[in-house]
């Protein structure tokens, strides 16, 4: 049994016994880790608010058979407080955490997902962009990291150069007229441009997009995510869109 130290984002905290919690952490080096934080629910706990969801912490963990134990935690970025003070950001950030939890495996390093989530939480806490856009950008990019990068320009099936108009979930993005199958959506061209911008992080284009294209885009992103994950992401249902 070893002691190790890593940077981690708190994804989830579940009550355990009298005053403990099981925290699910997305660590920089060790992937997703579940650990017990003893006495964390007591008001005099030395962990305080450090092990609340959305916090980025420097943790010392003691390796256990099924669950590790948190022995020390220092704050690296206190995103919990600013995010919880804005309800729209809170619902978006929760959906980000749940998606990250679903796309990562226990003890399998996922540094790109860690960096992506840290960036997304930072943007939400700082109020850099509209919360719905940050969420959609995170969902698209985390799916891309997981190996499901959608295409919003060329045909996702045969590679025919775009811009293509029809969008098909099963095909993995936009499709050309010959690859198009029944049930494909026909979103506005501006919506596809917005989604392409969100996928690469082109915020100049994304910030200038119109509300109707944001709404249509978020519908496509949600459907694309649910298609690739076996179970739905529960918190997406409760996300407040402006």
């Amino acid at each position: 049994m070893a002691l190790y130290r890593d940077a981690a984002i708190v994804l989830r905290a579940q009550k355990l016994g009298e005053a403990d919690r099981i925290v699910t952490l997305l660590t920089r080096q060790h992937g997703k880790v579940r650990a017990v934080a003893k006495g964390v629910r007591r008001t005099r706990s030395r962990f305080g608010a450090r092990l609340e969801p959305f916090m980025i912490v420097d943790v010392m963990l003691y390796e256990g058979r099924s669950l590790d134990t948190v022995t020390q935690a220092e704050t690296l970025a206190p995103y919990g407080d600013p995010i919880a003070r804005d309800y729209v950001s809170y619902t978006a950030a929760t959906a980000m955490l749940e998606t990250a939890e679903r796309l990562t495996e226990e003890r399998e390093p996922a540094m790109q997902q860690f960096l992506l989530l840290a960036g997304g939480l930072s943007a939400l806490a700082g109020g850099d962009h509209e919360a719905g856009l940050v969420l959609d950008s995170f969902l698209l990019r985390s799916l891309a990291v997981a190996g499901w990068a959608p295409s919003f320009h060329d045909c996702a099936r045969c590679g025919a150069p775009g811009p293509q108009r029809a969008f098909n979930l099963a095909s993995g993005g936009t499709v050309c007229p010959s690859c198009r199958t029944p049930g494909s959506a026909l979103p506005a061209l501006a919506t596809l441009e917005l989604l392409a911008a969100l996928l690469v992080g082109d915020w100049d284009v994304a910030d200038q997009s119109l509300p109707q294209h944001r709404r249509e885009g978020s519908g496509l992103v949600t459907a694309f995510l649910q298609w690739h994950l076996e179970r739905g992401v529960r918190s997406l249902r409760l996300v407040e869109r402006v």
Partner: protein
Amino acid sequence: MYEGVVQDLIDELGRLPGVGPKSAQRIAFHLLQADSLDVTRLVSALVEVKEKVRFCIVCGNVAEAEQCRICSDPRRDLTYICVVEEPKDVVAVERTREFRGRYHVLGGAISPIEGVGPDDLRIKELLTRLADGAVTEVIVATDPNLEGEATATYLARLLRPLDLKVTRLASGLPVGGDLEYADEVTLGRAFEGRRVLDV
């Protein structure tokens, strides 16, 4: 595996929160060896609690009548409502003897990751209670954790158009603790809520 009723008892005890298979076995054997009067008292307490206890139609707290002891007390101040997550929080606030108003139990906190949204809580019932304008201040006393803070933010936004004062319980340093061990969020809150010293 034990036989028949002993195993049934262990299985039933094992379904209680925080009771694992070993604890269930220990409690079952304690009951087997206990005086039958003690066991009868426990059984009647369990039956009685299910028969008599219900939720107050006004505030959602546990009650033995249609209204709980606090809601039916005419000495309580009707102009204040303290919003809490669970009935056990009512007991915690009552222990302080500081609050003389009435309560509203939400039945939890907003937690999208657990599938709990505003519609799953007793928020509509709170709005109904506020409709007659008798209440002048709503004190949001949800837990000082992430879900509790988000629920407080949601309530503050919802109640903003109403003509009443919405306050949140203060958070900061625990009495008897050391400053150096306080985390950044708690210490930040303590600074935010600092008060003038009256000497």
